[in-house]
């Protein structure tokens, strides 16, 4: 099994909005590291200290709804989160995450995963593997275009490369 990474699952419920990911009082900064220190500040105060680089955020339906603030996915990048797996995403969060190069997978059933479980994700093949329960959850694979965008590190590096090749 080739996987993109293995880490701990931080599991959240349905309808987690951008205010719960990055409360609006922290929006004065746009520095990923600083934002990362306040990720899920009110909802799960232990998150920022406990999260290890390579861990994953796992959520139910409609993750990232609410305002269009790009600070929310940026805070997860700053916290070292290696990817977000959810049963569904709100539109602008999904788009912003892809643009920032944060891997996201739409994956039915992952709301069942227990908090703290060791999981692996494979973005290319499109699945999540729960090592404790030995269950594989198949994801909707990212379309090749978005996969390419994520592989290149997001929209900014992608654009830089595009501009260079046009020269």
């Amino acid at each position, binding site marked *: 099994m080739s996987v993109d990474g293995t880490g701990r699952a931080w599991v959240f419920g349905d309808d987690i909005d951008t205010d719960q990911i990055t409360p609006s009082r922290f929006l004065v900064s746009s520095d990923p590291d600083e934002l990362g220190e306040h990720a899920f500040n009110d909802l799960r105060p232990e998150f920022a200290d406990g999260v290890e680089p390579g861990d994953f955020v796992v959520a139910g339906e*409609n993750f990232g709804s609410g305002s269009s603030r*790009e600070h929310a996915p940026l805070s997860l990048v700053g916290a070292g989160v290696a990817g977000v797996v959810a049963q569904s995403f709100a539109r602008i969060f999904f788009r912003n995450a892809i643009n920032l190069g944060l891997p996201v997978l739409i994956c039915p059933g992952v709301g069942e995963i227990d908090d703290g479980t060791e999981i692996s994700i494979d973005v290319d093949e499109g699945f999540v593997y729960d090592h404790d329960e030995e269950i594989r959850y198949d994801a909707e694979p990212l*379309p090749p*275009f*978005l996969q390419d965008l994520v592989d290149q590190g997001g929209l*900014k590096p992608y*654009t830089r490369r595009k501009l260079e090749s046009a020269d």
Partner: protein
Amino acid sequence: MTGKTITEKILSEKSGADATAGDYVEATVDAMVTHDVTGPLTIDVFEDVTGDDAALAAPENVVFTLDHHAPADGVQAANNHNIVREFAAEYGANQYEISDGICHQVMIEEGFVEPGDLVIGADSHSTTYGGLGALGTGVGSTDLGTAFATGELWFRVPETIRFEVEGDLPDGVYAKDLILRFIGDVGFDGATYKTAEYGGSAIRDLPIHQRLVLSNMAIEMGGKAGIVEPDERTATYLEEQAGLEVGVDPDLAADDDASYEAVYTYEGADLAPQVSKPSNPENAVDVGETTGTDIDQVFVGTCTNGRYEDIRVVADVLTGERVAPNTRLIVVPASRAVYQRCLETGVLEALVDAGATFQSAGCGPCFGTHQGALGDGDVALATANRNFPGREGSMESRVYLGSPATAAATALYGEITDPREIDTTRYDDHAVSDVGVVR
């Protein structure tokens, strides 16, 4: 092969691909807009990706407005205005000044939007352009800043929900009432990631300034876009408003066998004026359920309902009358051109005589940080698009949303009032706008 929706046709044309809902495409953008709030961040992204040899891919298609904090209401806002002014001057982009108007109105009046165009803005109400048969959508600052550099952006081709309204609308019922009803029926996130396409004989009969209202508020049901098929009226409107010769492209219509995720149908005659109760646009009810509610402030304006025809409806009701004693009426035209027409036609004078506060063009109190903000306990009725807690000021204030006619009747009596109680000849905006533009 099944037919295409307007959205699929526009994204096919702009990407050179055969685009169907669910596909991902990279498409060439016809126009881009940002303002004093989102502009500085967008500029940061652009400078970050372009580095030393920075140039806008198409400076003639890039538009900056100063509308949210205009005139500047503090040092931070003034500094942001200067960042925008300096950038636009350096890179040759279009830049509009304070009091020139709200981004979406300026884009339309200045001729940046044509039917079939793909337009993006770092503002969620960029859906407004759909009223002209364009695909307009709001994006983030990374999206817009990179598109400044390349002239292109990636899109997931959205599914479409169709709203059909047939027959005549009763007196006192406007596009604003239709869209509040749609949002009430579909829910605040009912069209997430989708285009709302509006059709049927009642929609075709709407003057353009009202079609823009339907598209503007598509985002209040989560929509990526909201589109009305362009027609002769669209062409006439653009010629008179923006001096554009666009003609009518018969291909720019949904195919008969296009596939929709859902179709909602309405009989125009069944509809009553609508009001959305605090604090979500989806709380839409017949006005009768709210009449008698005391109102401290009535606000007429915004990118939804701040056009000349909207303000004229209010002036027609209030000419020779006074705003109710314990109620404030704030009117903010959507653009300098709207302001000038109010001046030339006596609308401004009638409103000021009636006791209204008439401000320079811009967003006004729409998002609660500029002039006209609400205090603790204030109850307001606004022609705006959002009424979340704190949207127009204090978290302890409450906002109802309604049409300009409902706003006018409410300002006259100081409590929410059914506009049908007022002699309809005073605000027959369908009739005055038959050819698209009121003179």
